[in-house]
């Protein structure tokens, strides 16, 4: 089953992107934080531009997360504004001009924190969801 990741309700009503892709795709209102963490993680594998990041995420999750490509850009700009990413215009291997992002030290620290938090969250959820009964 694929989870659709979109931009979840910015207050100005831009709303979530909801172009359903496959029958099994479920549109979830996931926290903005999820997309942000994926971006940070993707960039931890090396700097990249927006298109590259979307491919990386898709590949890493084996297609389970189908990143709505457009949603990346507001997130990227936001993370850049917070100082977690640093952006520069550069050239791709094919010589095309693109905007490259990389993690700043602050971004690295944030990623580490988020990984730990998610880990604990997943642990707790697993415990509950796979428990046979309340007393176990």
């Amino acid at each position: 089953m694929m989870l659709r990741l979109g931009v979840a309700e910015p207050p100005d009503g831009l709303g979530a992107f909801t172009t359903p892709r496959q029958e099994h795709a479920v549109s979830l209102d996931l926290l903005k934080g999820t997309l942000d963490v994926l971006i940070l993680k993707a960039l931890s594998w090396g700097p990249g531009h927006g298109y590259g990041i979307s491919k990386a995420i898709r590949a890493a999750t084996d297609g389970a997360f189908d990143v709505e490509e457009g949603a990346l850009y507001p997130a990227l700009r936001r993370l850049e504004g917070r100082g977690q990413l640093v952006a520069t215009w550069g050239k791709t291997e094919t010589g095309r001009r693109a905007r490259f992002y990389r993690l700043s030290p602050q971004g690295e620290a944030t990623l580490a924190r988020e990984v730990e938090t998610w880990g604990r969250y997943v642990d707790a959820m697993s415990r509950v969801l796979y428990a046979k009964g309340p007393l176990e």
Partner: protein
Amino acid sequence: MTKGRGGFHGERPEVGQPSVEEDVGEELEAHLDMAIEDLMAQGWDPDSAREEALRRFGDVERARTAAEAEVRSRDRALTRAYRWEAVMQDVKYALRSLARSPGFAAVAILTLALGVGANSAIFSVLNGVLLQPLPYPDPEAIVWVDEAHDGPDGSPGPVPWTNLVDWRERNRSFEALAAFGASGLTVLGGDQPVRATVASVSQDFWDVFPVETVQGRLTTADEHALGVGPSIVVSQGFVDNQLGGDPDILGRTLDVNGTVSTVVGVTPRDFDFPFGAEVWRPVEFSEQATSRTAHNFRAVGRLRPGVEIQTADAELDQIAIELGEGLGGIDYDAEGAIVTPLQSRITSGARTPILLLMGAAALVLLVACTNLASTLLARGASRKRELAVRAALGAPRGRVIRQLFTESVVLAGLGAIVGLGFAWVSLPVLVGLAPEIPRVQEISLNLPVLLFTGVVALVTAVLFGLLPAVRLADQDLAGSIREGNRGNAADGRSLLWRTLVGAEMAMALLLLVGGGLLLRSFTQVLAVEPGFSPDDVVTMTFQLSPDRHPDLASYAAFYEGFVTTAEANPAVESIALTTSAPLINCCPTGMIQKDFVPDPWVGPGLYVGVTPDYFAVLDIPLVEGRLFTTQDRMGEPHVAIVTEAFGEMLWPGESPLGKVISSGGMDEFWPEDGEPTWAEVVGVVADARYESLVDDVTPGYYFPLYQRSGRSRFSATGLVKPAPGADAAAVQVVRSLMEERDPDVPLRLSTLEATVAESVSDRRFVLVILGIFSLVALLLAGVGIYGVVSYHVARRTREMGIRLALGAPPAQVRRKVLHGAMIMVGGGLVVGLGVALVAGRLVESMLFGVRANDPVTLGVVLATLVATAFLAALVPAVRSTRIDPMITMRGE
């Protein structure tokens, strides 16, 4: 990386940097291009590839807009941070700069503190008394109602009970209309007998003032009935001061003026309407006078929501007129009603003095600002080099101005903080010294005052700081670096200096004229002949209990016994009792009849009961006939003594001796058959001022206290003249005598001199404050002139040095300096004089015995200012002649 382009949009876009839209757009375009490339590499044809790429991308427009929004919001945050950083930098720089000249900073801050502090303090008073709404629910609906006696809106006065009852019944404009009165009555049952301010209020009163009780409740409608209870409400202050803070006060009984009353509620400490009341009792308990001319009550009301004051006024006017028409021949003198907002009624007397002081404080601050502006200009001139260097290093003009202005703001801010400290310290002193200010409990350094101070500080900074900052930034800075700090000998700035100094002089003149006029008024008031001699007279006010003295004979005997015993004591030279002493408990007046003719009445006239020694104690001379003796008592023929003015008024050109008068309705000797009691005039005495020193003499007559009583039979004032040197002993004598004869009678002791002083205390208060302000302004103006002239001399040192070297006599150089200074001053004085003459009208109401354009005052003030200016300019002028020409010629 391509130069000149990049992602940081923190600065405002300058030439060469891409806009937000371009940047985001290019990025998204790049994404789509790469996606299409990949798809085409997988075999898609260009058009389908584009379609698919767009499909996978999602809503391009939304992505674009969202991304742009993120960028913009960050840009805004960055700009804010940047600006804040710049401001902090300016502030730090300003503080450092001030620290480098601590002398200047200290003087400037002190000057500002005085100016701002004075304004804060006076504004606290203005705000608390005049601006803030009354602390009752829906305060704008509460009104004061008078009866009009001279047309529907003239001669406001108290209202008779019966009229008020009818007004209440017939009106549609009022939610509640209540009668009230207040007097000092003896209350027993507390720690000791005390004379408390007791208000008698009608049932609607608590609808007009629905205060929240601290304990218990307010009196209800059924408790406001004839003979019921009475239940009373007391204030928390009364409970604390007189009842030992008793927590079980509810249900306790107190003897109020002879009537046993039960406490049913306690009002909060700061509720004291009317007249500082501490106890409230239902007026309906006793039977009220039915006469429609017995003006015994005041009235307050609460308008119905949405009803305008004019509507209510007009309605009551109409009702009053209709009542009069329907009454036939019964005595009725109401011609209408006057409805005014309660707030303005309470504060009207304080309005002019407070506004005057506020204006004066503002003037002082303006003078301080002008001084500072001149100082900053002068200081700035010596900083030209520093600023020139900064400009050369690339600081734009706006930045330099902002920096200089920040210095002023910092100065003003520091001055305001210190000023608030001054105000905080001086406010309790101010309020303590001040005479009866209405609503004094609401004066404090609260939020509105703090906001006001902030605004004043900012305006002050603009006034004294902006101009010098702009001026300075406009220097020919490059030229200054070359020339050093010299500058030209003559430049257009001398006009600016002249204006500043002239303005200071004008404002100082206004303040001094105001102070001078008030001072003259004050001395005039004190010079008034009161008609009696307050010297060495001790006053004792007291009130006998009605149930101990059931009839006239009883208390006449008490009075006589008291006087005789006290007189016998060697410590007491003489003693008299009276129903109303001058300035203390004025002024029972009524309509008088004369010559055995009951109609028409004449007057109004004062009627005062006195014991025989009264005139001796107060030194009121006898003009004709005789004074009272102890023979004039009950059972003897009724006699009276008239004042000179009254005699002249009643029998012009004739001697009043032998004539007869009566004060119908005013004393209990009005027999059933309606025949007034006629008293023969046996003496004429000189006039005396009873109401106040500034009002005209009150004409009237005196009657013997042993013979009749007047209306206020139970309260009397004793006037005691101690034997020389025996002041304390005499006080002790009367105290113990009263204690002996009736321990339940509270005595209030004072001196007549103190009472006279108190009657002018409000004038004195305003005078003192204004005097302080004027002196501060004078000092500041003097310092200002000194500073400006010194600066001029310093600037022209070279020129003067040359002149002296060429043989000019020093006196001439000095004269030139002085001449220039006095021209500056003269201009300002002329303008100030003009304004003073025009503005004089505003304070006319506070003057007494002087006109607003009093030439003596104006002359003295002008002379003082000219002399001060001359002296202030003299010092630097003399210094200018001491310039050693050789030194000036050689170097800077």
